[in-house]
């Protein structure tokens, strides 16, 4: 509770505590016999996953099924979907896909045109779904949805097996370095729940996952329409002993490695109260983007390479001994040094990031105006903003065949390419395969200010993680 926590040696209570007394009772009742255990619910983990699939793969139906079977759909939402199903198809069958099609244009055209975020929870976890459309022209949306995901669910229609689009989705999962990939072989009901069909798809897919160096790939035979192996185990697949999709999502590790990375704190904001009470307070606020920081740690500020020591880590009105990824904290240092937004605080004893103005990256182009080789763009990298010039386009990736294209260097919307840029201020970066925050950047058009490119930094052309 806010009122009990000290901010620093001055031990000043936050004024928020003044009115807290009447609510003390509620706090104590929080472990009451709630049907879902309100007390236990306060410390769930959060898992973010993305789904990709085309119009006919049953992706919307799968999400509708997860929401429906996990009882995350309320009566008024279901009623609205029932009404809409009847109006569109003329029959009484509920179209679960309508639960996720949000905008009017989508309902009219029966397609998904943008990334939509969905939420549901089970007693074990809370989930955020980035639901992305799968057609070729929406690569940019898949990249957007995948950028924050811990798990990618790739849907394959059991009747069609692996098609170009499956490769495209898998490539994006690999490019965005999603730690877990779940291949959901859907519409198993339409192939008589055949183990042979399922096994054949696994064998074929393993060749792709090997080429793409996908990390943790898991296969599940499902029928989203009927619910087989989605929430409950199916009686139609006695040959399958693995978990259902939901069981898997409840147990896959959440970002397990981030705290083992070298510590990184991109400085977002300098907190200076200028008040009598906190006259000398100077704190560097930011979200920890790798590793852990402790009071007493020796740190280096980049790019200046100034060194100091952490004397306090504040989180809101509390002070902590240690903080980790992805906490938003405010760090105070032993010395009064010049630090501003865009600087990066790292631990002196750990591997340092690269500080360089020449940066090599894989870029996904997001805008209808093609990339301008030799052109200038605004760069946003962690909390830093600078400008950059596109030095060279090395090759484009044909994400359907997974081959490189070197004779056409015109990078258009939804293209993925390997490029080199030179920045005005040097960037302080890690490779994307090492750190998703300090290894990613966006390109912004200088005139329209639109976000036009998403970049993943590679150390050099030979970076293993990106060579196909």
């Amino acid at each position: 509770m806010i009122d009990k926590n000290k901010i620093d040696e001055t031990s000043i209570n936050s004024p928020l505590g003044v009115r807290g007394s009447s609510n003390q009772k509620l706090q104590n009742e929080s472990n009451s016999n709630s049907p879902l255990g309100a007390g236990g619910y306060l410390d769930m983990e959060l898992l973010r996953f993305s789904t990709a699939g085309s119009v006919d793969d049953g992706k919307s139906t799968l999400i509708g099924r997860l929401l429906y079977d996990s009882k995350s759909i309320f009566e008024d939402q279901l009623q609205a979907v029932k009404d809409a199903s009847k109006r569109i198809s003329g029959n009484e069958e509920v179209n679960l896909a309508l639960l996720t099609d949000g905008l009017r244009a989508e309902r009219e055209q029966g397609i998904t045109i943008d990334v939509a975020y969905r939420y549901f929870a089970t007693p074990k976890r809370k989930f955020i779904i980035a639901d992305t459309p799968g057609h070729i022209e929406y690569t940019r949306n898949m990249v957007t949805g995948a950028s924050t995901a811990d798990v990618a669910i790739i849907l394959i229609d059991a009747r069609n097996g692996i098609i170009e689009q499956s490769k495209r989705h898998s490539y994006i999962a690999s490019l965005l370095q999603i730690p877990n990939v779940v291949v959901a072989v859907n519409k198993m009901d339409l192939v008589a729940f055949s183990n042979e069909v399922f096994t054949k798809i696994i064998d074929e897919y393993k060749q792709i996952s090997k080429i793409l160096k996908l990390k943790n790939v898991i296969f599940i035979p499902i029928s989203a329409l009927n619910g087989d192996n989605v929430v409950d185990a199916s009686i139609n697949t006695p040959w399958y002993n693995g978990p259902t999709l939901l069981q898997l999502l409840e147990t896959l590790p959440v970002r397990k490695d981030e705290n083992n990375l070298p510590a990184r704190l991109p400085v977002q904001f300098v907190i200076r109260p200028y008040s009598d009470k906190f006259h000398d307070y100077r704190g560097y606020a930011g979200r920890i983007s790798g590793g852990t920081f402790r009071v007493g740690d020796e740190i280096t500020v980049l790019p200046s390479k100034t060194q100091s020591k952490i004397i306090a880590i504040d989180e809101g009105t509390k002070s902590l001994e240690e903080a980790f990824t992805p906490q938003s904290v405010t760090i105070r240092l032993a010395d009064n040094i010049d630090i501003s937004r865009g600087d990066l605080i790292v631990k002196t004893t750990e591997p340092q990031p690269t500080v360089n103005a020449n940066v090599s990256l894989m870029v996904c182009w997001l805008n209808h105006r093609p990339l301008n080789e030799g052109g200038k763009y605004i760069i946003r990298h962690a909390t830093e903003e600078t400008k950059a010039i596109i030095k060279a386009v090395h090759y484009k990736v044909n994400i359907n065949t997974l081959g490189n294209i070197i004779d056409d260097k015109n990078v258009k919307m939804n293209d993925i390419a390997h490029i080199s840029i030179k920045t005005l201020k040097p960037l302080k970066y890690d490779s994307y395969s090492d750190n998703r925050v300090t290894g990613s950047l966006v390109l912004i058009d200088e005139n329209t200010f639109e976000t036009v490119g998403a970049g993943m930094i590679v150390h050099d052309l030979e970076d293993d993680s990106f060579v196909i």
Partner: protein
Amino acid sequence: MNYKLTHLKELESESIYILREVAAQFEKPALLFSGGKDSIVMAYLAYKAFYPAAIPFPFVHIDTGHNFSETLSYRNELVQLLGAQIIVGSVEESIAQGRAVEEKGFSASRNKLQTVTLLDTLDKYKFDAALGGARRDEEKARAKERFFSHRDEFGQWDPKNQRPELWNIFNGKKQVGEHFRIFPISNWTEMDVWQYILQENIPLPSLYYTHEREVFERDGIIYAALPEMPRRATEKVEIKQVRCRTIGDITCTGLTLSTANSIADIIDEIATSRVTERGGRADDKRSEAAMEDRKKAGYF
């Protein structure tokens, strides 16, 4: 040390990160404060994000003139408690100036008129970013909203032309006259908000707890029987044990029959509820795409 962050801590961290981005990227942000639980949580998050410095932007309240009196007194207390500044935009004034025209009839609401006053207030003070407490789980048009939602010079939202948002990189660059709506608690659900209120011991307006009130029913929704809400002769006033699940303008806030008198009770009630919180909002029932249309026009 256990390096697992709970879902509430992770959501809090994400929201604080966004609040700090707004303070860093914009010249003149403002926090839209409605008096509802979501904007109360936002106010506390803003307090934490910059503590021990003062919140570096004012709160803006668009007062429809049809607010519950409890909302206004709570607002005034909270602002004092957090040391925040408050600016009030008045729909009443917009009507008096002829900028907005009062709807007529029994289902008249000032909900739609708020948009005029909101845009006028943002313009008057030259705010370039308006922080709102909207959540993506509230309504299907909101599921596609960005954290940083770009608005053209007419304050409108174009759902087909949103800026892609990748990782945790937010692009708040804009042309003269344009502004942003920013939604730091986009990823919170109704349950997350209540759990956070419980965890952080945040006091709430009494309207959220059960109380006896004169009410009447219209189209299956229970409304407060107050002078701001004209009734048909057939609409009978009764005294019932109710509470608000969301708080807005009197004319569009549906009440829930409830005996919940603590946050823990409310969490239990929501956990077993089969209707969404917006199920009681008259403004969403006008058409299937009601929210999408209001957002395009510049609504919160």
